């Protein structure tokens, strides 16, 4: 039996801005774009990891006003993060920086082991990139 992550949901304030960012910075491509009411769920994916979908949606998509407000506040305050692995950290850093992302940390060796760097996506979520061993 094998179990693996199939979809990861990324909450964003502006779907179109985030599609442009994730495609530009991470080389993702749009796989699906589903609308319902005022909201859209857009699935992105990477040729490097074909079995994983990144689903972008807004905080209020499928939620009550109060829950959407609470989630939006947390996202914007920077409460969430995703960690990626890359086989070329410096090239990844340059590519993501060139997309205009806010740089949180330039590539450095962490005292606890990995060499990594970090950015924020346009909504405030931290994206950390770790050099593969």
């Amino acid at each position, binding site marked *: 039996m094998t179990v693996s992550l199939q979809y990861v949901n990324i909450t964003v304030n502006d779907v179109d801005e985030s599609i442009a960012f994730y495609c530009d910075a991470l080389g993702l491509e749009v796989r699906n774009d589903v609308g319902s009411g005022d909201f859209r769920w857009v699935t992105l994916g990477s040729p490097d990891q074909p079995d994983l979908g990144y689903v972008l949606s807004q905080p209020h998509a499928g939620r009550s006003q109060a829950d959407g407000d609470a989630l939006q506040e947390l996202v914007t*305050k920077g409460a969430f993060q995703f960690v990626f692995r890359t086989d070329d950290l410096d090239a990844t850093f340059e590519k993501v920086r060139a997309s205009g992302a806010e740089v*949180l940390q330039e590539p450095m060796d962490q005292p*606890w082991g990995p060499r990594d760097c970090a950015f924020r996506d346009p909504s*405030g979520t931290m994206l950390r990139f770790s050099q593969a061993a």
Partner: protein
Amino acid sequence: MTPDELATLAHLRRARDMIDRDYAHPLDVPTIAKHALMSPAHFSRQFKAAYGETPYGYLMTRRIERAMALLRAGSSVTDACMAVGCTSLGSFSASFSTITGETPTAYRSREHAAVEAMPPCIAKLLTRPMPPVQQPQRAARRPQSSTIREAQTAPVS
């Protein structure tokens, strides 16, 4: 949430990121507030409302966390103080004592064998100092006067 409220939160987030990135540089609340496009007093109130502690408290906790690691590695108290962006040894020692419950000299000279035996990622979590608002037991043991005071802020002009 209105676009203005969202923009305010994004400014506060960038200010907190600035503290995380530049805490070892000479950094004070008026400088950080300027980056958040707010007056120091308004910025401190808004930051506390969003993150549960004042920007000065957040900055000092970050600095003391780093200083603890330097002291464990054998750095002198003066060197640790300067390395984390504090310019006054007196206020560094006072903040250190408030946040950790012991003086930097006492912390430096005591045994850290347990921390040294841990993987660094575990040690980082376990030795992370908690701001006073998140440590009720320790705060209760301390005299009221030892809590972190808000930085002196210039009047709004």
